């Protein structure tokens, strides 16, 4: 009896402790259980209406010549995909990786540089000269291509033509202009119609990053050192942004959902973002025919300033666990080689190609009713060819966050130079 009690005590007390601490045990790497036959590729991607839909259409196209081919697509939102990549890399369980996974362009270099063992070279997966340099740069490390560009993050300025007309403007008045022109005209629109032309999330640096990239500038130099201090393009971008907000032509909201709400509800008469925002614009079916798309205003007095930029976008990566030959051939025959694919996915998903030959297709020249019959996709492909490269590197997100924090301080009245110096040292600290 006594012994049973003792055993029971020991078991009852140690079992839960062992279970709780079970996560603390270590171990070295090894292969996991991921497998596939010779004709199946596993893909991790997000957004069933966009990326996953495009992959499914690519599967159909590849099946025409390879009837036994199938894809196993696993829906994984980007943030979680990143968590999985980090977990697999740190635990060295590369066997659980899919063959192909989608990576946000801004995070591509960070992942290749930090976790090179996750990737296979994508050298044979495309003729990279058929993509704009600015786009392939995102997934190129040490002159090696690791990704096939897919989703174009080319930035557009989209405006409500009816609201502009009410103030006596057309979309042409907002084409090839500078930010100071924009400021004057937008203030006029605001005064006459009561509607701001832009909106965005407070504390987000999206708009400023687009301005910065439009001038070919970035938060890092070619060697990867942060250039947040004494960066005239960045200072001009921040000044421009603050002027927009203070004059009321740019409405700051608290969340992404509210941002979408501002134009869907018609409270704001335009937006500047990646072309993918057109999907959200078109949910406002009552505003059909009243939108038009043009390029961005450019920074005043900054050398290299253009009217073109990008925000977001993503590229397909081939994993180190992949059937590399099949994955390369599949990507080369579809996303880097099939006009038919882009012709299918463009009208249904609004997925604009980075692959230059696709832009010549008639489908791109089709008028889009929501945008008053404007062939916006052909225009966007033209914009895409003029977007300056963005130098992302390993610490891009850290630098963005530091700049966002600095902007909040500057908006609150802090001195710009010292706030940016502080952001610079935050990033330098993170880089160690």
């Amino acid at each position, binding site marked *: 009896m006594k012994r049973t009690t003792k055993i029971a005590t020991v078991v009852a007390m140690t079992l839960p402790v062992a279970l*709780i601490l079970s996560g603390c045990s270590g171990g070295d790497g090894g292969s996991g259980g991921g497998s596939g036959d010779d004709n199946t590729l596993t893909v991790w991607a997000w957004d069933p209406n966009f990326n996953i839909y495009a992959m499914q259409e690519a599967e159909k196209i590849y099946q025409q010549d390879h009837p036994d081919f199938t894809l196993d697509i696993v829906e994984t939102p980007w943030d979680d995909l990143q968590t999985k990549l980090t977990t697999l890399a740190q635990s060295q369980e590369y066997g659980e990786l899919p063959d192909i996974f989608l990576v946000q362009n801004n995070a591509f270099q960070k992942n290749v540089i930090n976790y090179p063992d996750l990737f296979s070279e994508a050298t044979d997966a495309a003729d990279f000269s058929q993509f704009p340099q600015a786009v392939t740069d995102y997934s190129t490390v040490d002159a090696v291509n690791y990704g096939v560009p897919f989703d174009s993050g080319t930035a557009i300025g989209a405006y409500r033509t009816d609201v502009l007309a009410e103030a006596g403007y057309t979309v042409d008045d907002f084409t090839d202009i500078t930010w100071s022109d924009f400021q004057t005209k937008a203030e006029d629109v605001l005064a006459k119609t009561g509607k701001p032309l832009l909106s965005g999330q407070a504390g987000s640096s999206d708009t400023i990053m687009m301005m910065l990239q439009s001038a070919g500038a970035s938060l890092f130099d070619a060697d990867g050192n942060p250039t947040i201090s004494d960066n005239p393009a960045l200072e001009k971008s921040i000044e421009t942004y603050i002027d927009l907000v203070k004059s009321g032509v740019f409405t700051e909201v608290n969340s992404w959902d509210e941002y979408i709400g501002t134009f869907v509800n018609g409270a704001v008469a335009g937006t500047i973002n990646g072309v993918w925002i057109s999907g959200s614009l078109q949910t406002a079916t009552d505003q059909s025919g009243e939108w038009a798309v043009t390029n961005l205003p450019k920074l005043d007095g900054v050398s290299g300033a253009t009217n073109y930029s990008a925000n977001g976008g993503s590229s397909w990566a081939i994993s180190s666990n992949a059937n590399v030959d099949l994955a390369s051939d599949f990507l080369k025959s579809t996303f880097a080689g099939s006009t038919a694919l882009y012709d299918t996915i463009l009208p249904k998903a609004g997925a604009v190609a980075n692959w230059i030959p696709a832009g010549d297709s008639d489908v791109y020249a089709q008028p889009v009713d929501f945008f008053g019959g404007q062939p916006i996709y052909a225009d966007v492909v033209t914009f895409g060819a003029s977007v300056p490269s963005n130098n992302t590197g390993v610490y891009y997100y850290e630098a963005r966050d530091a700049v966002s924090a600095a902007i909040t301080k500057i908006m609150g009245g802090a001195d710009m130079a010292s706030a940016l110096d502080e952001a610079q040292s935050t990033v330098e600290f993170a880089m160690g």
Partner: protein
Amino acid sequence: MINKLRGVPAYLFLGIWTLFSLFPLYFMAVSATNTSQDVLASRLLPGGELFANIAKLLDAQNVGAAMTSSFLIAAGTTVLALIICSIAGYGFEVYHSKGKDVLMGVLLLAMMIPFAATMIPLFQVFAKLGLVNSLFAVIVPAISTPLLILLFRQSSRAFPTEILEAARVDGLSEFSIYARIYVPTMRATFAAAGVITFMTAWNNYLWPRVILIKNEVQTMPMLIVNLSAGYVTDYGVLMLAVLLASLPTVVVFLLLQRQFAEGITGAIK
């Protein structure tokens, strides 16, 4: 009469507070019946889009599979956690051993280790065991929590030692004392612990997302994030999924409401 009047401000305050608490639930339910555009416009009246939203949700996501996975994980975790943690809490309180307070200290220290710190080794363990994509891999790390052990230990203080002595004199085995006397008297604590565990397991996100890779084994919280991860979010459909995902925890809570309150206050007492 004066007494009755004295209660008015309190009721008024509590009433307003209740409205504040209920509003998000109301908005969630109403939004499930509206279009995405209506939700963005904060429409507060029920609309006629419920069936359209249901059709869209079923078309976009495998709701049945996600509900099943979530339910198996939550139910499995709850049952196992209650058994293990109640035995542990009971053991910690009823038996006497020199090392038990030290052990309890270790347990409480374990509460301070953030999950992110143990996630990678945990993943290695389950990957080596071939348990990636297995619901078992989600359940096992969650069946023993310091919080529940502490809850059971604290509640066990109220368990009269006289009963224990009497049962031993009558020849009842140690396990029978636990199973036949302790468990029935601690019903309220079990209910409270059950509700807490079920809700935590149901809402668990990070670990299932990492260890469950295939679409067929995704859980409801994963499904909801999928719905809002694209370029265009259908907020009506999203709210419907959120509503569906909250129903099971609401049902479990309502069923065990009274015991839950007793269990929690009992634990503090």
